[in-house]
């Protein structure tokens, strides 16, 4: 942590970056913070609790305002950053990416490729609760799964915290706000909510870092991140493309292989 603060101070002092996006101590856990003077770099923290995906701020135009910034990125945030590079949303010369490895080493990435290499070598943080819930859902009948999801999603009141917390949801106008035609009913009720979450998940195909920020952001505690996680699994199982690979490639759904699976097509 000291190393991180030292690096942040250095970056700000030298004028190399104008802002550091990191975590500070919040009310109950860490929360995002934005440091623009070296004197405040001591606020920075970075530990296992820092799971929110800070990459979401990199596309906030009012916040970034053309500045060169540094970001302290968790494992999953690194994936999102790679994806944002792939989608031409970031400029390598305007961004310094930092992380702290599991053995508490500060890592400063100098090239986008280094991030990719790091992701390959570093262990993927485990999310055992999610894996257990997915396994439970897979074990029950289809009717029970429908009952589970309609019960959960009936609660959704469409605050769109899931969308707001996602680094990939940087569209100026979301599909749910499109009203000609009105694809997705914008009010909150079970089917309208189901449609919204299917759309959200589908639009994440091959782009999702599997960080779980959508589910963590949900004020009602709905396990909606399992939907995107399931998509990550589908992409891996059917096309053999893992999440680290997918974020670096052309979109999974805009590409194909002639030999893609089609055992369900007659």
């Amino acid at each position, binding site marked *: 942590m000291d190393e991180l603060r030292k690096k942040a101070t250095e970056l700000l002092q030298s004028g190399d970056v104008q802002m550091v996006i990191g975590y500070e101590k*919040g009310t109950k856990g860490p929360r995002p913070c934005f440091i623009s003077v070296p004197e405040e770099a001591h606020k920075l923290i970075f530990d296992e609790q820092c799971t929110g995906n800070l990459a979401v701020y990199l596309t906030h135009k009012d916040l970034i305002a053309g500045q060169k910034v540094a970001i302290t990125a968790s494992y999953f945030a690194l994936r999102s950053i790679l994806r944002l590079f792939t989608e031409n949303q970031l400029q390598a010369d305007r961004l310094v990416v930092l992380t702290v490895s599991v053995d508490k080493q500060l890592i400063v990435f100098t090239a986008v490729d280094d991030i990719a290499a790091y992701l390959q070598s570093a262990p993927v943080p485990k999310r055992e609760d999610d894996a257990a819930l997915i396994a439970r859902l897979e074990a029950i009948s289809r009717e029970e799964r429908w009952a589970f999801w309609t019960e959960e999603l009936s609660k959704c009141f469409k605050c*769109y915290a899931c969308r*707001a917390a996602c680094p990939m949801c940087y569209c100026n106008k979301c599909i749910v706000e499109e009203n000609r035609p009105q694809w997705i009913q914008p009010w909150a009720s079970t089917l309208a909510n189901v449609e919204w979450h299917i759309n959200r998940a589908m639009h994440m195909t091959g782009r999702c870092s599997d960080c779980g920020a959508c589910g963590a*952001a949900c004020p009602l505690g709905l396990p909606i991140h399992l939907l995107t996680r399931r998509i990550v699994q589908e992409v891996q199982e059917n096309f053999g493309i893992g999440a680290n690979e997918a974020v670096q490639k052309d979109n999974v759904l805009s590409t194909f292989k002639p030999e893609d699976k089609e055992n369900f097509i007659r």
Partner: protein
Amino acid sequence: MMEKRYISLISLKRWLEKLNNDGKHIYAPVHKGEKIDFGRISSTDEISFDHVQTTQSAKSVAFPRTEVLFSYEKEKHNVRLGNPASDSIPESVVFGLHPCDAAGFDPLSAIFNWDYKDELYNARKEHTTLVSISCTKSDEYCFCTSVNGGPGNTTGSDILLTPVEEGFLAEILTEKGETLMKADETCFEPDRGSVKEDYLVKLPKKFDLKTVQQRLNSAFESPVWKAQSQRCIGCGACAFVCPTCACFDIQEDAHGDKGKRLRCWDSCGFTLFTQHTSGHNPRETQSQRWRQRLLHKFSYMPDRLSVVGCTGCGRCSRACPVDMNLLEHLISLNN
């Protein structure tokens, strides 16, 4: 009107069962996954008594998240309209809400009635009786005492229960409350003379409301908004869990020649909330929208409607995915 009674926990449950059997819809805090939230109960065993705060407020009993304003049917050149009937609204009891939630109906009613009367809201409100429970605990997000409220505040409640020893001190505050009590008055015993204040949580004031309001009156151009809102990601969680937020959208659910016009919750924090068709947006940035949220509650509403748009329930801060702690911001405005 004010009458004090005592009710034991067993009698309380019996009374609620009676209300339930009478056909009233009873909503109370229940466990929903890992969260506690209001839900319609069929048995008193479902009720949670030991939480600090439900995730959502009780406002949806009078201002549901999705509501039919009217229905229409087109036939060639003509249109037939269908007005929602007020007799379709069930008699409801919200049980176990806290004083901050009951107080929240004051600002809501003010918004829906300050000029034009919103009969849809009023009808639902009229069909609802509020049986609140005073607070015996609080958490770091609570600040009712700083916004004219308190853990045993009676504002808005029809009956206020305060946990004392094995039962509750029952303050019957309105005619509605009295009618509800009389559904089975045998459940209620004479007041045992418990001193209410002894049982309430102690919640010191965190800031001075007057000072904050005065600061806000001249703070429109202040750089504080930009600094405070950096973290905000622009979702609607704070608005949707808030007991007083009443912003809404009007939408159309059309199926061929038939359809309904709906009112649904909206939030001043959303980018597109104020955006014109031309693309021009009077509140273009998140800092402008954050400012609107605070000023609306703490400056515009007191000014225009003579009521503060915040009851200190702390839900917005608990619900915020990025820990935009309202109390913290108010304290910093105070200082």
